[in-house]
């Protein structure tokens, strides 16, 4: 038997422990991944409902209840190349996150226009039109962008006037616990509805600032103390996704539809 402190012994024990631990961890991760992904799907669908105003933020809905409420949402796909809505893609199975990561289905964004820090943009952009009750029409769009530590994902909805925010929810982020993760606090998110988005020249003017700021109060949402980087990231996300490279053309198309029924 080798001496306890021999280099060979040290290497053998280190390799053995490393092998055992990596097998243990990868087995567990492999086995649990499907369950975690299923839950992530539920979270995401729930976020769509919350943004659309079809589910209260603090309620937890079952799988079936979530599916049932989706009948009030009409999914659509906007084709950035032809600048029109398309039916060539099935909106139910379309995964915009996978498409954005696939070079064949996305285009790189030049750095000066890539406000959200996402690198590539999918050709087809999904959105939902909610038509519950007729009058309370809302447009729900997915938004995402680089946050403090990882990508922030959420859904934003606009009122039928396409000028004001109707709802917002974030379903995935890696922001600092206790600081940046307050982007999920109901108190803060509750300030969003009603905030104006576009100025007269169609530029995105929605911004985050403390209540003492006098600049464009109708366009202001409170910033979060201590979460400067996170809030700035969310602001850039809004500017990008509501702007000309994001959903602005699709929204204008919807506005035109409303004008000529």
């Amino acid at each position, binding site marked *: 038997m080798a001496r*306890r*402190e*021999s280099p060979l*012994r*040290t290497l053998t*024990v*280190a390799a053995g*422990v*490393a092998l055992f*631990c990596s097998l*243990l*961890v990868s087995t*567990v*991760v492999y086995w*649990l991944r499907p*369950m*975690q992904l299923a*839950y992530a799907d539920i*979270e995401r669908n729930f976020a769509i409902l919350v943004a659309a105003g079809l589910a209260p933020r603090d309620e*937890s809905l079952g799988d079936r209840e979530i599916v049932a409420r989706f009948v009030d949402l009409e999914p659509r796909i906007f084709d950035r190349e032809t600048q029109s809505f398309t039916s060539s893609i099935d909106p139910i199975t379309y995964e915009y996150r996978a498409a954005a990561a696939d070079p064949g289905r996305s285009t790189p964004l030049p750095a000066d226009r890539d406000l959200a820090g996402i690198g590539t943009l999918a050709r087809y952009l999904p959105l939902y039109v909610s038509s519950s009750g007729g009058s309370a029409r809302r447009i729900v769009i997915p938004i995402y962008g680089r946050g403090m530590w990882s990508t922030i994902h959420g859904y934003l909805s606009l009122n039928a006037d396409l000028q004001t925010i109707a709802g917002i929810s974030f379903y995935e982020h890696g922001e600092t*616990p206790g600081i940046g*993760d307050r982007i999920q606090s109901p108190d803060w998110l509750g300030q969003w509805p009603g905030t104006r988005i576009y100025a007269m020249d169609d530029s995105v003017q929605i911004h985050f600032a403390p209540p003492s700021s006098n600049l464009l109060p109708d366009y202001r949402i409170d910033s979060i103390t201590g979460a400067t980087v996170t809030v700035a990231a969310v602001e850039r996300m809004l500017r990008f996704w509501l702007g000309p490279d994001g959903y602005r053309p699709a929204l204008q198309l919807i506005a035109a539809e409303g004008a000529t029924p």
Partner: protein
Amino acid sequence: MMANIRVHGRRILRPIVDDNPITVQILGLCSALAVTSALLPALIMSVAVTAVLMFSNAAVSLLRHIMPRSIRLIVEMTLIASAVIVVDQLLRAFVPDVAAVLSVFVGLIVTNCIVLGRAESYAMHNGVFASLLDGLINGLGYSAVLILVGTVRELLGSGSLLGRPVLPTLADGGWYRPNELMLLAPSAFFIIGLLIWAVHALRGKQRREPAPSRQAAKLGQTG
């Protein structure tokens, strides 16, 4: 034989009150502050820490004769970190809501001084079964404090226990005005401080700590 078992039994149960890792050794405080604003996360965290303690104690004890001194700590940390990842993944798969509340504090079990403290001071010198038991008992000692603090904070801070209303709050038309300080981290400091005082006062003149505890306390003050 019987007396031997009784003496041994008393000694092994010491971490629950007499040698409690939190109130006596003052270890593992930061997680105790962070996850006790309600009872459910405190319970889940208790189970998580106990499971990690048992696994790491058993694994370290199993390897204690073949572990070279030069890489002793890194081997222990690797085993502990792996156990924590496994627990974290399990929580994310089966209780995702609670996992979201516990957030980073599950991952931070790696740096919980109780875990490395027990591995170093007990599991390195004792058999697998005894080490497993030591992990369980120390986990229970940690759990006892977490559950106590979690109960007090949720009851006074939200008027509920495990999310069920116990004291009808003013907001629900009752008489109880929730103490919002209880939902903030400083309240855990106060409660644990009072608890430490109470435990020490009740035990009378505190005996000198036996060597293992002091060794554990020296290991680090970060957790």
